[in-house]
């Protein structure tokens, strides 16, 4: 009878599994990692959004800040300017990247690895650097300023050239991926039907990469609209949203208006982000279909054409970089072009001197180490965790969010949140820790996606097997998950390191006199008119990021060789 009663009670409420100590530990971890994103992202953003409807004394004023904003013509004008720069950059970058990617995937031009490497260089420099090079090239004293036919480099022209430089690798990666998944059988079929190569291009090639192009477009647009380095250095009197935030906050300490501009900037960025997610899903659907890899056929004219094109693009990138290096070495441009290291005396300049360089390395190292730990573990718990489904879902959402939040907005949100007298976490304000936390958070999404992808490729049953063998999840995590995902883990750490070295946007609001950073020093030296030392520091960042990247390359190669025996199966 008792059993029957139990039965009745069971009907009312579904059974709940008893949790093992292992499960409890995992839940604790999920909560901790969830708390990280709540504190490092959700709460600051919330505080920032609420600031935009408060006055400077903290009183609620509804939308009056927004009204004030839209009544200020010079501020509203920036919206137009930002959209203009964003759209033009998008069109130019995506076009250049498409042709280059086409050459990489569909031609047999020689030297592809070298050209690909060169095309990735802009990732390794702060977005301020191309602007500085452009001043030397096209400024009043510019070496080739005749090439602008009297146009002014300060303003939209300079911003757009800088943004094209800065966004090119991002677009290129996406479009190369899109072009690489093309199915050779489609081309064979089209050729068999005697379609002309032009027709094949428009009926097979373009439709095949359309999602890639759309995705690249949105990524470039977001980057160009939210970037602050280029317009800061070479924008002249051409105001954009990103510089407006900076101007309101740093220039006038008008935090409320800064919050309003942030919200305005958040809209296009968030919009672009959601469209991109949508498109990416379709792209993935294309990816999973079985395709026969396309082997380009040699064609001397086409291959040479593509080679010439790649040379031009490489010349542009290396030219910018080389100009910066010379700018750093010229003793006194343009009057004394003898070379020397006097511009490397950073300690005599604004921006924190050599300390800022070492701070940057320190900050980037912490970001790489702690960021990788947090990101990978977070992704693991979302992907392989058990229990607390709602929290894991919310975590996944939060992990995707940083992509849609411009760095400046995040930085401002951090000021609001971490400088609140009532917030016990305000001990972090002005520390290295807050720079590290903001940088990890700023670059969370891409890292998270890298980790998730790697984890998804692992057998879903590992955890079940481990449980049946009565092994705690963390043992399997350390002995199996981490070793198998080592390449992805290295990728994440290098991505975080390089970005921490070059980023300006979030940290520009957060550094303190002890924690000045190299990238911010570039900004501040340029601000003070010390453009040559700014170039020198920018190049220091480049050399550091490049060295680490090279180190990473050899490290990955070493690991690959060492684990070749068991990795073969994963590649199959």
């Amino acid at each position, binding site marked *: 009878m008792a059993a029957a009663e139990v039965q009745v009670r069971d009907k009312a409420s579904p059974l709940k599994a008893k949790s093992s100590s292992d499960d409890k530990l995992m839940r604790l971890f999920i909560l901790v990692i969830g708390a990280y994103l709540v504190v490092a992202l959700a709460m600051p953003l919330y505080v920032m959004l609420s600031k935009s409807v408060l006055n400077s004394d903290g009183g609620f004023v509804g939308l009056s800040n927004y009204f004030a904003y839209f009544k200020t013509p010079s501020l509203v004008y920036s919206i137009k300017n930002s959209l203009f720069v964003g759209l033009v950059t998008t069109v130019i970058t995506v076009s250049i990247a498409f042709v280059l990617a086409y050459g990489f995937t569909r031609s047999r031009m020689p030297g592809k690895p070298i050209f690909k490497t060169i095309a990735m260089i802009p990732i390794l420099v702060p977005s301020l650097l191309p602007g500085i090079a452009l001043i030397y090239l096209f400024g009043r004293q510019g070496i080739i300023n005749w090439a602008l036919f009297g146009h002014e480099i300060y303003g939209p022209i300079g911003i757009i050239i800088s943004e094209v430089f800065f966004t090119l690798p991002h677009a290129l990666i996406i479009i190369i991926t899109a072009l690489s998944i093309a199915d050779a059988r489609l081309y064979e079929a089209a050729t068999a039907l005697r379609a002309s190569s032009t027709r094949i291009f428009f009926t097979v090639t373009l439709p095949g990469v359309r999602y890639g192009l759309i995705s690249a477009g949105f990524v470039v647009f977001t980057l160009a609209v939210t970037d602050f380095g280029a317009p800061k250095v070479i924008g*002249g009197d051409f105001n*954009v949203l990103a510089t407006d935030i900076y101007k309101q906050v740093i*220039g006038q300490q008008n935090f409320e208006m800064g919050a309003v501009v942030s919200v305005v900037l958040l809209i296009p960025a968030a919009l672009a982000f959601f469209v991109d997610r949508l498109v990416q899903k379709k792209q993935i659907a294309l990816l999973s279909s079985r395709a026969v890899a396309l082997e380009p056929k040699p064609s001397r004219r086409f291959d040479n054409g593509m080679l010439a094109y790649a040379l031009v693009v490489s010349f542009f990138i290396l030219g910018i970089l080389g100009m910066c290096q010379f700018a750093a070495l010229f003793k006194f441009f343009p009057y004394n072009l003898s070379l020397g290291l006097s511009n490397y005396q950073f300690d005599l300049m604004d921006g924190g001197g050599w300390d800022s360089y070492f701070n940057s390395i320190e900050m980037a190292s912490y970001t790489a180490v702690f960021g990788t730990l947090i990101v990978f573990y977070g992704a693991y718990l979302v992907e392989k965790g058990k229990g607390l489904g709602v929290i894991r879902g919310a975590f996944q959402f939060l992990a995707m969010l940083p992509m849609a939040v411009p760095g400046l907005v995040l930085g401002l949100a951090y000021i609001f949140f971490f400088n609140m007298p009532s917030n016990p976490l305000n*001990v972090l304000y002005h520390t290295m820790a807050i720079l590290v936390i903001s940088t990890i958070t700023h670059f969370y999404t891409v890292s998270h996606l890298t980790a998730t992808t790697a984890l998804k490729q692992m057998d879903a049953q590992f955890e079940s097997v481990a449980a049946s063998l009565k092994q705690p999840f963390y043992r399997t995590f350390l002995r199996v998950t981490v070793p198998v995902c080592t390449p992805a883990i290295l990728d994440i750490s290098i991505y975080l390191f390089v970005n921490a070295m070059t980023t300006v946007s979030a940290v520009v609001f957060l550094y303190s006199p002890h924690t000045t950073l190299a990238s911010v020093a570039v900004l501040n030296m340029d601000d003070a008119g010390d453009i040559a030392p700014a170039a020198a520091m920018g190049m220091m960042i480049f050399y550091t990021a490049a060295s680490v990247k090279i180190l990473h390359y050899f490290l990955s190669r070493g690991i690959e060789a060492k684990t070749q025996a068991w990795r073969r199966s994963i590649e199959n």
Partner: protein
Amino acid sequence: MKKSFYRGGSVIAGALLAMGLATGASAATDLMVYTAVEAEDLKKYAARFNEDHPDININWVRDSTGIVTAKLLAEKANPRADIVWGLAATSLLLMKGEGMLEPYAPAGLDALDPKFRDKSSPPSWTGMDAWVAAICVNTVEADKNNLPMPSSWQDLTKPVYKGHIAMPNPNSSGTGFLDVSSWLQLFGEEGGWAFMDKLHQNIGHYTHSGSKPCKQAARGEVAIGVSFAFRGAKSKASGAPLEVIIPSEGIGWDMEATAIIKGTKNLDAAKTLADWSVSEKANKMYNEGYAVIGIQSLAKPVEHFPNNIPESMIDNDFEWAASNRKRILAEWQKRYDSKSEPKS
């Protein structure tokens, strides 16, 4: 090593969201010093001070005058600075009005030129040196563009200079503000704005910092930079083809000054620094870059500095400038801001 360990600790604290680990103890007193002194001088200033007071560790927060001022005002409720060493007297007057300064008569106050101290007793601030407006003209660029050498402010409004002049935005730059306030005093309220309207026609761009126009002129990025004499002298010394011109109407100037922030937790250390900042040693140090200093009897001529500076300095009404600062800046922004550099 110790420093980096401390930072490491704070990172861990951040990562674990633990609190309290981030506070490190140290035997020396850390003094948070806000300043607008030129970056290249900061190390020197701190080092000279530490020669006499090794137990006080100076943590600089440096930015343009306008920024430092705005920052101090913004932090009024929760001040992070202990003392200001090297900020425009007009800014300090503003803060005095807000009740943010701790009045203090440093030892050696009497030796200072009476101009170089707050009128109240005890004074809220004490002066260090004067920094004076000047025009930096790149002689090479001037020749190339057939620009005559200007000798007065009014000269700069001539159409020939159109697009060749850079000047600092007074909203962020102390130099910019002293220029604007001096023109309003020299030419009167109406005449001043009329002058600036015409000058605005010739301005290529406004810069964020006061030294940038002169540095740009030194590089030939503009022909003429409205800046300050110290910067011009420095750039000239480093080999730039510059002429530093003191306009005939007279030049605006401001003092770099020292003031203790009310509510500092390190009042004793702050007083020590305030005492030192008016000492003879300090004044000689200021004199290495500036021709006009607090104890003028100690002053020696500074290389590349025009000689006629003291007599060209206008009779600057700091009180007026400070009390009208907000109005002047708002007016300026309304009239000219669209040509400002991104950072206002």
